[in-house]
């Protein structure tokens, strides 16, 4: 079935057509406003509802139906906006079916949203924010470290790539519906994507740590006249280059895993340790 046939059929009951352009516009609006009204109580609920309004207006001419639909979408919602985009497509597909009189309940729409938002956010966080972002930002910082103005523009690659992915995935969600998304989540392809992104992510964390983490010690010991002073850093470099920065990253990783993820406290501890180390001459 061609695209036009499909949308024409979907719109026969209400007389209004939901087109793939509507889906893209819905996701793009959501992308723009998702975080603007963010709050601890419902996180992205306001942004998601705002993006839904044009679609809902097309689907529901009865004001009572409209009110119900608005209330339905003002519930707690939070995902990673890019890889969570199939949810936008699926929700529109469900609303469309509901408007046509299919027995789709509030609960099934909310259930689908809350069921998918977590796993999709997990995928998005590991691909968008833990892999793409550090790589792009590190490239940008490297390019500008000597004063070049290219770096700032390289940063813009992140939203550019995100928008390209989101526009495709939201339409994909609309076309295939909730069953196929669940299938996809369990299928090998998504697993491959996450493992691939995680692999690249960890590899790049290693490469970036090597480039950007700096720690060395000026410690040296004198053993009387005539003997070469014992320079600790030379010994360390002799064992393995970059040992101290590596230990710093591994130590912090261990701490995050075993102790606490309180970023602010760890940051302050690092500063305190650095200053004490500088005062005592260890660093």
């Amino acid at each position, binding site marked *: 079935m061609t695209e036009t046939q499909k949308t024409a059929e979907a719109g026969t009951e209400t007389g209004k057509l939901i087109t793939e352009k509507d889906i893209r516009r819905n996701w793009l609006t959501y992308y723009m406003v998702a975080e603007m009204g963010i709050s601890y109580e419902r996180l992205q609920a306001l942004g998601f509802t705002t993006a839904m309004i044009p679609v809902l207006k097309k689907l529901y001419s009865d004001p009572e139906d409209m*009110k119900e639909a608005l209330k339905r979408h003002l519930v707690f919602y*939070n995902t990673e906006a890019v890889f969570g985009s199939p949810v936008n497509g699926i929700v529109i597909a469900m609303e469309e079916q509901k408007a046509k009189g299919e027995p789709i309940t509030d609960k099934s729409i909310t259930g689908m949203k809350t069921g998918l938002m977590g796993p999709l956010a997990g995928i998005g966080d590991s691909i968008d924010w833990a892999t793409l972002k550090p790589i792009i930002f590190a490239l*940008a910082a490297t390019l500008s470290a000597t004063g070049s103005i290219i770096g*700032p523009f390289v940063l813009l690659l992140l*939203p550019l790539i995100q928008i390209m992915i989101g526009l495709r995935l939201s339409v994909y969600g609309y076309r295939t519906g909730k069953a196929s998304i669940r299938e996809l989540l369990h299928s090998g392809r998504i697993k491959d994507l996450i493992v691939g992104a995680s692999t690249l992510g960890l590899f790049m964390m290693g490469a970036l740590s090597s480039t950007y983490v700096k720690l060395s010690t000026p410690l040296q010991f004198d053993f009387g006249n005539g003997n070469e002073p014992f320079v600790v850093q030379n010994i360390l470099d002799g064992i393995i280059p970059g040992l101290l920065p590596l230990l710093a990253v591994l130590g912090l*990783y261990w701490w995050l895993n075993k102790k606490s993820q309180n970023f602010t406290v760890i940051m302050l501890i690092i*500063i305190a340790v650095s200053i004490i180390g500088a005062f005592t001459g260890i660093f």
Partner: protein
Amino acid sequence: MELLVVSIFAGLWYWICKTDIGYAITHAIRQPLFAALPIGLIMGDVKQAMIIGAAVQILYIGLVAAGSNLPADDCLAGLIAIPIAIGSGLTPALAVAIAVPVGVMGVFVDQLRKTVNVIFVHMADRYAEEGNTRKIVLASVVYPTALSFFFRFPIPFFAILYGADAVNSFMNSIPEWLVHGFSVAGGLLPALGFALTMFVIGKKELFPWFVIGYFLVQFSGIPVIGAAIFGLCAVLLITYYNNNKKNLEV
């Protein structure tokens, strides 16, 4: 005069970027590295601004907002540290020293915003009851944006306008070891960002890849872009061979 212009710019920039319009769009333009360009243009030293911007940027490369809470305010850190560092002729290491506490302070402003925004959620609930879609849009986009001006704009504005002198005289009076301590911290803090990212990725069985990446750069000294190319190719090949194996088994 120049200080006033840069203060106003920083105030407006902080407000616009932290309305979070456009998800990663504002995430990209609020980075210290991006803000450094207009700041450099205003202050007439683009090159130094870029160098300092890149140094501050490194602190926040690996920052991951787990559960939408960003652990440090990269935007405020850059907006305050870069103009002060350029204005006072501070080294990038000292710019980092200013950026860190400022970045921590910014987190509290974010928490305040997410608490205050609860008001608009309840407004939207009422408007939904009335079926008023126009007012829902106002409550989710316009009101939070307008309100946030009052707690975003003043912070960098006053910090730069009045803080520059204070920071300058403080930096001139601190002892050598303290300056050195801050530059040690500047070298160590990126480690936290990378460790946090590894924690978020959370795949222990892939850990050797971290070691490979670390020592590839350590022994060969290739730049980041080179490492990224090798890494990407390795991942693509592994995925390809894995899929091939699966197909053969079937």
